[in-house]
Structures are given as structure tokens and as C-alpha cells.
């Protein structure tokens, strides 16, 4: 594991009026890291992801991606620097086919999505790559389906497929299995376990089993503050964390 973190966050702060959603958060993600981010509802997990990806702008703090400070960068630029995410609630191009959804992402990645002329070969390449990526996560069969008509579980997978298609170095997964019938969650977990080893991954998840199986390090977020961080074993046994999950407020 290389010494310098791919993504390092220092003193990240954000509040909406009186409501504090991020309070001096420090996080380091190293290449290949698997970090779980847990915490009760409203702890600011998704907000944290939004801050990292630029859908929100922090009041204070720095975000460094490969030594490049990106906190002032707009969301779309950050993506091109290797920071990808999935959404807690499916955010897809529902009128398009599954394959087009991925292909467009690839086109953006390859920086020719602005082309109006002379694009045929590249686009064909995009479609082919898109197909292979769909195959990899086992939904190659539905490449021609319109997203709107897909069951929720498959849409969740598509979210991941798109994020991966961006060839990120850091991937932020916002509750990848949220809203999926438990009978189907194992497919998503299969996919998670097969994610490329070199990518640094931050995953938000409520299902503790998943987290403890998947993550090497766990960060517990409460009211926008890092309450604890450590290897799953410690976290599992930490009384304060338990307290939080039993719903008692932490002083």
C-alpha cells in the first residue's frame, strides 16, 4: 500500500443554518482501501459524500485527491480526476437503455462526449465496453432494456456499473443495497466483493453484516462528527457505538 493517501480530507465543516452536518471531519483513503462509513440516520453520511463529490460545497476544510486540492472544484471536474459515486436513491437516465447509460459515462470519461461529428467508431467502442462491463457484474442480458422498466435491484447494480465505467481511483458507495429486497441483496454483495482491488472505496451501509464483512476500517459518524474509527472488531465492541445504535444520544 502506497504511503500517500489517494484521497485525504482535513477539517471538513458544513452547516445548514443552525444544523451542523459536518464538523471537522478528517479522513484518509489509501489505494485499495475498503472503508465503511456508518452512523444513525441524519448523522451526515450522505452529506459527507456530497461534500466530497462537489454536490455541496464545504464551509471549511480541504479535500485533496492525489495531492491535488479539489474542494473548490465543481462536481464534474472532480469526476474527471478519478472520484466517482453511486447515489442512495437511484439517479439514472430512465428513458434510455441500460447500455446507453453506461456508454454515455464512458464517452464522458474518454472526453469525446461533446463530439457532434465523426464519432461513430468511438461510440461503437463505448457500446462494446459498456456491454462487457454489464457482463462483468452480471446484467449483460438486459443491456437493451429501458431503465424505467427494470426492477429496483437491477437499477442499483446499474448505478455501480456506471460508477465503475468512469475508472475511478476513489469510489464512494452510498448504501448500494438500500431498498433492495433482502432476497436480492446477495447479488449486490457479490458485485461489491469483486470490485477492482486497486480502487479506494468508501461505503455507506446500514447492514452491519455487510460492513463488517467488507470493510477493513470503519468510521462512525454522529451528528456530523467522527465518533470512532477503527477495525471492525473494535467498533463492534465499542460501548459508545452500541449506545448510538441503541439510539441514546452521545455527550
Amino acid at each position, binding site marked *: 500500500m502506497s504511503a500517500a493517501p489517494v484521497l485525504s480530507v482535513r477539517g471538513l465543516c458544513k452547516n445548514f443554518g443552525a444544523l451542523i452536518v459536518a464538523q471537522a471531519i478528517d479522513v484518509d483513503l489509501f489505494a485499495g482501501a475498503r472503508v465503511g462509513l456508518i452512523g444513525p440516520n441524519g448523522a451526515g453520511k450522505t452529506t459527507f459524500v456530497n461534500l466530497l463529490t462537489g454536490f455541496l460545497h464545504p464551509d471549511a476544510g480541504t479535500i485533496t485527491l492525489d495531492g491535488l486540492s479539489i474542494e473548490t472544484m465543481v462536481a464534474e471536474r472532480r469526476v474527471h480526476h478519478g472520484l466517482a459515486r453511486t447515489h442512495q436513491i437511484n439517479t439514472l437516465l430512465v428513458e434510455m*437503455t441500460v447500455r446507453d447509460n453506461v456508454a454515455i459515462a464512458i464517452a464522458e470519461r474518454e472526453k469525446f462526449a*461533446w463530439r457532434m461529428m465523426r464519432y461513430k467508431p468511438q461510440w461503437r467502442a463505448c457500446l462494446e465496453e459498456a456491454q462487457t462491463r454489464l457482463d462483468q457484474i452480471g446484467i449483460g442480458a438486459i443491456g437493451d432494456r429501458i431503465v424505467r*422498466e427494470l426492477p429496483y435491484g437491477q437499477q442499483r447494480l446499474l448505478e455501480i456499473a456506471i460508477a465503475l465505467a468512469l475508472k475511478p481511483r476513489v469510489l464512494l458507495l452510498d448504501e448500494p443495497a438500500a431498498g433492495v429486497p433482502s432476497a436480492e441483496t446477495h447479488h449486490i454483495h457479490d458485485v461489491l466483493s469483486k470490485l477492482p482491488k486497486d480502487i479506494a472505496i468508501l461505503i455507506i451501509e446500514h447492514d452491519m453484516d455487510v460492513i463488517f464483512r467488507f470493510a477493513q476500517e470503519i468510521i462512525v459518524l454522529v451528528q456530523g462528527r467522527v465518533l470512532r474509527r477503527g477495525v471492525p472488531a473494535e467498533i463492534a465492541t465499542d460501548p459508545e457505538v452500541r449506545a448510538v445504535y441503541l439510539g441514546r444520544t452521545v455527550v
Partner: protein
Amino acid sequence: MTALNRDEPVAAPPATSFGAMTSGRSWLALVGHALPWAIIIVFYFMAGGYLSLGTQVLIWILFALSLDLALGYAGIVTLGQAAFFGLGAYAAGLFAIHVSPDPILGHIAAVLIAGLFGLVTGAMILHTTGVTFLMLTLAIVSILFEYANQARSLTGGDDGLQGVKIDPIFGMFEFNIFGETAYVYAAVVLFIWFLISWRIVHSPFGRSLDGIRQNARRMRAIGTPVWWRLLAVYTLSAAMAGSAGALSAHATRFVGLSVLSLLTSGIVTVMLILGGTRRLYGAFVGAAVYYLVQDATARISPYFWEFVVGLMLIATVLFLEGGLLDLGRVGRRLFDRLRRRPDPT
């Protein structure tokens, strides 16, 4: 995977599923492409005294087509399209009077000016959305209208721009009252813009626009510079509208204040919606039908056409979102449903 492959009936793919039209696999698609142009050509020989009416339709088709790019594909809900049409018209007219009577040069100038205006205004307002954006476009077109009304020395105010003289195209084909030149000229320009639009909407750029319309947040998440893309298409659409304006200025050798009116924006939107957005040919059907209905109903009773257009609009929004070009599919679905219904015995 079985659990995930809960199969559901695959409905007819909407217009935005690409490859549907690009690969003209079915002969039907080919006919679909040939038909409109065939009609345009045939009309030239059949029209007689109605040729200039035909020219008007062609111009409005182009105008509606420009709106289809911005509104249909990129989902930019604007009421300000008339600003570009009018600007193009006045630019072409004034160019002919003050600079050079050459139609081609004038046309190019008009396109550039309209495009530039689109670029500037777009850059100012494209970060807003919804009603605010609507009002801003509305304000822009109103400002232009009022200005044109006041600046009589330049525009002739509500008397319109008089004394526009246009040289023959290539020094050969002159604009006369029989309007052959104007018709062919309009048809050719329309065809060029159509090819460009066709190319664009099926390009990666076009697809990203379609993506932005469906879910701008998703597009940002895959690294699309949304604002820039919108600005680009807005500018393009403006240039196209300007081209349509230039056509009308050249075809009638006159520019009336009405080209800048809010109503003009309204009418072109009605045409597009009537015909159907995101199909390019929707503009063709919409403009033609609109003109037919107006021409026919207006002769029956005062206000009848207003009444009918109103009803058509309501009906389209409520029952026929795909526009007239969608009738086929709607009909088919209806038919299927009827057939499926178990007979009541």
C-alpha cells in the same frame, strides 16, 4: 441472476432509445424519411398560388426544428425563441438595406448575430431553471420587442422594415412574387439544418443533452459539464432560429414587429408540441397541421381557430404527450387493449 431477471413486458422504446432511428433497418423507417421531403418537392410543382404559403410553412418548420433542439432534446423550457427568430429577421433585413443585398451573405450575418445573442443571453440565464428561467426568456423577448417598437429609425417600428431589396441568389434566381426562388431557397436551407440536427441529436453530444434533460444530476455525476453543453445547444438553436428569421425576411422582403412578439414564441411551441418533440419530424407535422387548421378554421368564423388551437393544445398535453407523431403508437396500444379485453359473455 433469476431473482433479478423479473421479466416485465417490454413496451415500445421511446424516441430517446438510440439506434431505433439511426439504423434505418426497417423499410418503414426509410419511407418515413423519404415522405416529408417527397411532399416538399411535389408541393413545389402542385402549389400554384399557394407556393408562398408553402414557403411560410417551411420557414416555420425550421423555426420549430430549432426549438426542438433546445426544448425537445435538452429540455430547456423557453418562451424566448422568438427573440432569435426576430433578431435573425431584422439582421437579414437591415443587412440587405445597409450593407449588401446579397442573400447568402445576409443569411450568414443573421445566423451569426442570432447565435451570438443566444450565446450571450444563454450564458447569463442558463444557470437558472423552471419558472425563473421561463420568466427570464420572456423578459428578453419582451425587451427586444419593445426596443424594436421604439427604435423606429432603425426598425420602422410597427410599420415594419420597409424597402428590403434582395439580389438574386448567385445572381441568377431572383425573388419574385411567384416565390419559386423563395420556396427552393427555404427548402434547401431547411434540408441543410435538418442534416446538421440529425447528426447532432444522434451524436454523443446529442445523447448527453438527452441525458441532461432526463437527469442533470446523474450527468454531473459522470462528469458532464452540464452548463457548457446547454450553452452550446442553446447557441446552436438560436443560430437556427435566426436562420429561419433570415429566410422569412428574404422571402417576404419585409420584417414586421410581430416576429419578435411573445405570440410568435407561443405559436412555434404549439407547433412543435403538436407535432411531437424529440423526433425532428415532429416540427414538420406540427407546422403543416397548424397552418392547415388555422387557414381552414379562420375562414369559418372569427376566433374559431383560436378556439380549436386552444383545444388542440389541451388535448395534446392531457392525452397525447408524444404529439401527433405519437398517434400511431397510442392507437396501437389502444387497439391491443381492446383486443385483450375478454368478451363479456
